[in-house]
């Protein structure tokens, strides 16, 4: 079937199977930052924005996205760098496979929550699993990123 999707602001014609999920469509469209970690909506690796809100692209049928706006990490490179520099500064990217999904969610969280507490951050990002860091380095990086503009 044919679906029209705005991928990172650019209108794209996508030919896909009727049961194709957004995740595979995005990867086929060249957005390789979007990772598959589980297939069962448990890990958060495939997080992208649909009309500006985080969704798990492994569970969104591509057909549902017709004429809608999808944002991947490729589309927010400045934000990726703005938060990413703290992740790298803490050594909290480690293997990096969960980083794109985490970053999409952290950047969305910063827009959504005002002065979040550590507990609010943990709950917002509960679905973003990581097996490398034990979450501590990520939390330190998120804290720095979230506090950054508050101070400015």
């Amino acid at each position, binding site marked *: 079937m044919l679906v029209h999707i705005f991928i990172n602001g650019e209108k794209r014609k996508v030919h896909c199977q009727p049961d194709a999920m957004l995740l595979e469509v995005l990867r086929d469209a060249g957005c390789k930052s979007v990772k598959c970690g589980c297939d069962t909506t*448990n890990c958060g690796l495939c997080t992208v924005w649909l009309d500006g809100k985080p969704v798990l692209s492994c569970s969104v049928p591509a057909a549902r996205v017709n004429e809608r706006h999808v944002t991947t990490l490729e589309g927010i490179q400045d934000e990726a760098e703005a938060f990413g520099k703290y992740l790298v500064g803490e050594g909290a990217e480690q293997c990096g496979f969960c980083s794109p999904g985490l970053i999409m969610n952290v950047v969305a969280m910063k827009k959504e929550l005002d002065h979040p507490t550590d507990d609010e951050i943990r709950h917002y990002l509960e679905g973003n699993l990581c097996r490398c860091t034990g979450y501590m380095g990520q939390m330190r990086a998120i804290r720095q990123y979230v506090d950054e503009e508050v101070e400015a």
Partner: protein
Amino acid sequence: MRYVSQPVKKLDGMPIVKGKPLYTNDLAPNECLIVLALRSPYAYARIKSIDTSKAMLVKGVECVLTYKDVPHVRFTNAGQTYPECSAYDRLILDEYVRYVGDEVALVAANNEKAAQQALKMIKVEYEVLEPVLDYKKAVDNPTIVHNYDDYFMHIPSFNADNKRNIVVDGVEEHGDVEKEFAESEVIAEGEYEVQAQEQCMMESFRTYTYLDHMNRLVVVSSTQVPFHVRRSLARALQIPQSRIRVVKPRIGGGFGAKQTIVSEYYPAIVTLKTGKAAKMIYSRKETFSCSNSRHQMCIKVRVGADKEGNIHVIELDTLSNQGAYGEHGTTTIGLSGHKAIPLYNQARAHRFKYRGVYTNMMPAAAFRGYGATQGQFALESTVNKLAHMLDMDPLLLREKNMLRMGEIMPAYYNEPLNSSALDRCIQRGRDMIGWDEKYPCKEISPTKVRAVGMSISMQGSGISNVDTAGAEIKLNDDGFYTLKIGATDMGTGCDTSMTQIAAETLLADIDQFIVAGVDTDISPFDPGSYASSTTYVTGMAVYNAACDLKNKIITAGAKMMYPERFLDETDKVNPKKFYFDGNRVMEVSTGKTIALHDIAVHCAGTSDGNYLNGTGFYSSPVSPPPLMAGFVEIELDKETGKFDIVDYVGVVDCGTIINSNIVRGQTEGGICQGIGLAMYEDVQYDAKGRMMTDSFMQYKIPNRVDVKKIRVEFESSYEPTGPYGAKSIGEIVINTPGPAIAEAVYNACGVRVTSLPITPEKVKMGMMKNELEKQK
């Protein structure tokens, strides 16, 4: 030091966080055939007949392969140095399937839909056999998991006996064990079980393959062991190693899972058969149920001591569930004793019995900790129990008995302990957790209690006398360097930490270096990243290569200053007379200098130049143990048995820290993974041998709400055989949570849980049992 011990950012950090295409499946060409496996629905069966004709008719299908299409030469998929310690008990596809999920057939198609459809069209008739699903009943079971005669094991002393389902069998003894037990005033004992924990790296197993213009097989794979992949593929496919090139891109985590060669054989054989590029991406379900996990082990322990708390004798008896194939079976079980018993090196005698058995379950292989985790859970739990029997603070009991610097460790291949800050680790952890105020427990409400527990740990740094590493650093014509290592950065940051060692030694800036990723055509030989070997073994090889190159640069500089003095190639430049400061070579007596850039240009581009390439090699007769103390505070609800971690403190002696960011991340991450082992992660099979916990829905790993507070610190020692005094960090960090949390639970409610994970159900059941016994 400029780079060693500094929080240097990982060199690949920014591309990673910007989501650049760096991983195997990001790089695979679009035209790759999709390879899928048909997997056994039975725990044990023989394939009576298999008909692939209908599957071949599906549009887009390129090939369907069965056991009839593969070389009948057995191999091991364990990524270990040759001769491997694991039995040759595998074929790429076999007439027998030995666990639910074992490969029956392969389909390759030009799209995934077609491949999936073809899988359904393969008609298989099975002769279903009775499986062995209880590892305690595996030896001499009427069911023989590997019932054939071409079973092969390089090392006879492991006593493998496939006709009895025995992978490994042995006993080691030191001192007079029976006499020591007879004379012991207090004997603590117990039987412990550690589950088959799953590694759960975020990137599943994946490989793509193609034939290059010279008709060589190129294998791009998410692996910890590129050189072992090359050797094992060559044997399995019956082609020369020289026809295979293995390339490792960025890896999304390994934790030992990728020390076993899982996804590589299948696309490789498809490419050889079809001549076309092929890729295989394991689903999460396959990664859970059709690959490998930690070894489930049952360990019986006895510890004999006098009333003053001097431990005289330790006995440890390990039974290990190998599952269906023998990878890493003999070695993991070894660590359950060799890396537990030496913790109490003052003991005069010890006995270590071990037996590993085949069952019809998913194979166990390598996972961070590699048997030491299991052995230490059993021994540390028993020592904590002994402290209660003696009414002694467990810290004092450890101070009396633990291994000390300068000692020979009889249970650790008689290796010496050259460095240790374990005493300081314990002291620091004690202060950080507030042990003296909190031990053993405090009621904080009528139903809730807070309690503390602790454990100590050791691991190794590489495999003594086995691990080797090569390293090369070349000076390029513009004065920058290329560092070539065969160790595999899998997110662990070794490309960065190895560069730090090189930059420190060559007095260079870190951005003067390019690190070449592992490519078996180009990289120096290295077994790969496992056994906590990279920083220690490869790090020394890099150090040696840097020293070699430094000498060559000095020589080249001196020759440029005084060409007439060093006419003969064999003329040696006296290193005391010339000096390299990272930017230039200087003659000490005259102050005359020549810049590195000029040396590089001269060497590369003039007829009397030279190719300046430093080479280094390292292999160590010892495997120096890093040491650690772990402390936990929990809050337990006595009404439900549920408990949470309030605080976890880990203090590690990993010798000199090379990269303080990386070791902290390793330590926090390892502790979190250990908490998962201790509290949540529970592999379950049904009665027919099907794994039920094959997704993150059923198999819970810790998330960031579960694990709120982990604090880590480091106490440094200096390991004389390591690069700048470094030891390892990667594995030791997973070991303390199991026994420390079990002890905290005991201190909170009097229940000693002896099987992991420690679930609220087990705690509550234990409390009810204690209650009943009290009433009696």
